[in-house]
């Protein structure tokens, strides 16, 4: 027995799912979606859950993470109910439900909260700079430390517990038999998907989709590599030409691809770029700013201009801090993590019955 909650739809509307009420249950979205299976009427059932307010069923859904928003369902919807958009809204809802701190819930539902959080961090940095507690060298030095600490603590304190919660909602609650061997064996799925994003290719065969997948993959690789280069190879302080060049390439990859994404979103050329939540804009813009500012900072170092133009580093640091403390733990960044884990969990759930014993 599931209890109907008619007020849940309002919640979904705040998270960006605006048109799904128009659905008249024809099932065309499911017919067009490659993720739909015989017993899994995706995405239609998510729309039903949202309309009826069946929160628990939504929470235990893995499929929204497997969807790359190709937009076929929204294109073919006879009622313009935009099913793709509701999948995106459900993803935001999932991010807020996995988050034990509840901070993402606040940020996803209120643009004001987002702006306040960003402003506070900006003011903090300006404050610290004007208070003159660090020398310029120390700023760069501690900036690097901040990055390392932030990554570690955000992961341990926020993301890891959230992934465990995700596992609890999507796997543990389904009461499948637990077998540690399967968890180890399927780890390969986690990493393959994380570094290939190849699921996106299964969505459709069009040239447009392949281009998008390639760009998306470049972005993922570029981002992870830049992270590695700056954090572990200390790009801003290194003397190795190889590392310096690699850093340039990776940061350029980020801002070129994000720039292209932004342009597409501005022009609203594809279904994927038509309906966007403000959290999507923050994500893409900050990623772009991060790539550009990191590139510029290293360039200024190489040209010996940074000392006289230290504002640039502060700008980069602000972007970095906002990124690492808001967007990564509580914003859209998490979709990267949850999607890879969703692949992992669904591989575990799909493992043959005998393998699970």
């Amino acid at each position, binding site marked *: *027995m*599931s*209890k*109907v909650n*008619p*007020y849940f*739809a309002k919640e979904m509307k705040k998270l960006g799912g605006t048109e799904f*009420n*128009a*659905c*008249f*249950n024809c099932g065309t979205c499911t017919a067009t979606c490659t993720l739909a299976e015989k017993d899994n*009427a995706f995405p239609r*059932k998510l729309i*039903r*859950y949202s*309309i*009826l307010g*069946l929160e628990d069923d939504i929470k235990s859904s893995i499929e929204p993470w497997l969807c790359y928003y190709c937009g076929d369902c929204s294109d073919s919807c006879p*009622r313009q109910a935009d099913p793709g958009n509701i999948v995106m809204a459900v993803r935001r809802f999932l991010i807020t439900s996995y988050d034990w701190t509840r901070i993402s819930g606040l940020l996803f539902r209120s643009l004001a909260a987002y702006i306040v959080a960003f402003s506070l961090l900006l003011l903090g940095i300006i404050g610290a700079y004007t208070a003159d507690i660090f020398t310029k060298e120390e700023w760069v030095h501690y900036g690097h430390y901040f990055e390392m600490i932030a990554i570690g603590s955000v992961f341990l304190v926020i993301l890891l517990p959230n992934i465990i919660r995700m596992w609890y909602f999507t796997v543990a609650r389904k009461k499948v038999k637990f077998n540690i061997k399967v968890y180890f064996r399927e780890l390969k799925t986690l990493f393959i998907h994380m570094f290939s994003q190849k699921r996106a290719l299964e969505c459709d065969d069009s040239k447009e989709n392949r281009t998008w997948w390639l760009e998306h993959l470049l972005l993922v690789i570029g981002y992870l590599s830049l992270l590695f280069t700056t954090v572990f190879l200390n790009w801003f302080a290194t003397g190795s030409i190889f590392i310096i060049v690699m850093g340039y390439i990776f940061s350029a990859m980020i801002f070129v691809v994000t720039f292209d994404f932004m342009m597409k979103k501005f022009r609203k050329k594809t279904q994927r770029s038509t309906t966007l939540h403000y959290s999507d804009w923050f994500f893409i813009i900050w990623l772009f700013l991060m790539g550009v500012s990191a590139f510029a900072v290293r360039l200024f170092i190489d040209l010996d201009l940074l000392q006289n133009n230290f504002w640039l580093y502060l700008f980069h640091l602000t972007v970095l801090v906002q990124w690492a403390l808001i967007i990564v733990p509580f914003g859209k960044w998490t979709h990267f993590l949850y999607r890879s884990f969703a692949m992992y969990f669904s591989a575990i759930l799909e493992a043959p019955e005998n393998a699970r014993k």
Partner: protein
Amino acid sequence: MEKKKQRIGLYICHCGGNISDYVNVEEIGKLMQKEDGVLISKDVMFTCADSNQKDMIQDIREKNLDAIVVASCSPKLHLHTFQEVAKRAGLNPSNYVQVNIREQCSWPHSDKPKDATMKAVGLIQAGVKRVAYSESLENIEVEVKSTVLVVGAGISGMRSSIELARLGYEVYLVEKESVVGGHVAELEQVFMSGQNGKKIINDLYEQVKSYSNITLFTNAVMENVSGSIGNFSVDVRIKPREEISGQKEETLTLHAGAVLVATGFDPYQPKEGEYGYGTMPSVVTLPEFNEMIRNNPGKLVHNSRQIRKVSFIYCVGNRQNKGENKYCSRHCCTSTIHTSIQIREKYKDITSFHLYRDIRTYGKQEVLFEKSSRQGDIYIRFDEKEPPQIEQQGKKTLIRVTDYLTEKRELELEADLVVLVTGMEARKDSTDISAKFKIPIGNDKFFNEIHPKLKPVETVIKGVFIGGSCQGPKNITESVQSSLAATAKINALLGSGKIQLAPIIARVNQDACTWCGKCAEVCDYDSLVKTTAANREVALVNRATCAGCGICAPVCPENAIDLAQYTDSEIESMIDGFMMEIDPGEIGKAEAAVEKEVLQMREYPQMWKNILSTLNGGKKTIPEMAEELNEKKELVTYHVMTMNRYGAVVPAGMDEDEEYYYYSIKN
């Protein structure tokens, strides 16, 4: 009995090729010339064409034909056409018989042309034999009163009365309630115009009053009905009005040429306990809910509780697979969704659940469905097998339902009010009215028209018409449409002051009749009555009321009754005609020739060899080849064309007259 017809004209139709492609009409035409009584027998490309109609009229006049038969398509298409031809030529239309050799011969037997031809011969022989026994019948002419009785002063009855009055008829409008307007007056807002129901009715009422030739009786019920088309006589009992003291009950006898029955419907009344109706205070019907909306301007309050969640349960008392009401009331989906949009606009903070089986907001009403979903109404689909369960838990009303849209999930929802969407039922007194006017009613107790598509407002009782929802569930638009259609039919009927009735009625051979009363017993129209002729009690047919069904004929122990145009001799001669052995003779020969040709066509390898040998390296035209091979040109053409397509031969220029192509063997 009339003289057997001896000068029969027979016309057999090719119907382009629809008939002649499968039935050898030419040969049948020749064969039938030898038939007894047949003076003319022709095959015609299109018998219905104007030119042939003219030829037929000429034949009838010049050859003094006494009967005609056309063997063509179904009588449903052209019986009337050729009856008119007969009439124009001065022949009684009853001396015409149409034989159906298309829908019931050439088409269904297109797989067996030879058998189809033989069957056509049988059918045509039957038609010729039948027409030989045909009698000249005269239409029955009845004088009619230009007065119309309209039963029921709802929107349909009032609209029709106004139109009839405008056309100059005297109208008696009879209403059993003390006020006019029926169910439309109960509606606060009508889709799509958004008008107030009461206002519509008030406007109509003002119009009714403005016509001096409409007499409105309220509080009036039908008593005895007698008479027939052109002159019905109806006793109407008028009850005294409560508010006027001293009024006495009186009974008037009204005379009318035609009757329009527009008695409308009753809303289905749920049984005690059906979905908690009558046992739970939070369960009401849609009409009751509409009244609640009318009476609650600011906030929607029921039993001193503000209503925020309303749950509609659809198809209550309708579309019952096991129950009596199998039909869909068709207006209720629209009505309900319209109501749910109305309450959202009126009370803002209110949510509607729609527990439905199928949504049928057909036609222009579909926009409502979309609007309602977009405003956030929740639709849940259940199956008749698993109806929603309603439970009262303290102050809460809980509904449990299996949602067929969500993996048949069991859902539980809470509602402040449960509204049962009740459909239409026939009026409680429809059986009574049916008995008085003899209008056939269905199992659902709605009145039956003659044919739902072809005669949608006529009943088998001549002069009695039905309009509006007494005929079956209809929305307001459809109700008014049908009653106005009936109005037009009444005008066509009564317009000239006289009417012609078809002569197909039962006839009693009073010499043979011994009056046992069985015929009167089976007649639904009371058309057979006892009379005295030559000092004997015998049966008499009322020519104006007889419907011409013939039910009385087989029950007569003396075989004293027959139905005009369906007499024993006519039917039995048809049977003889079907079974008459015929000499295939000419038909057989012609068929055999065709068959040989077909066989030759199939033996193309031999034919190809022959053609190739005549060409023998040179070039020849088709006529030359045909001559050399001693074959038909058509056959040679066919093969040469085929050989050309397969590349065995090629065209090789034209002859001197540029008339034929030369062909030569392709290298």
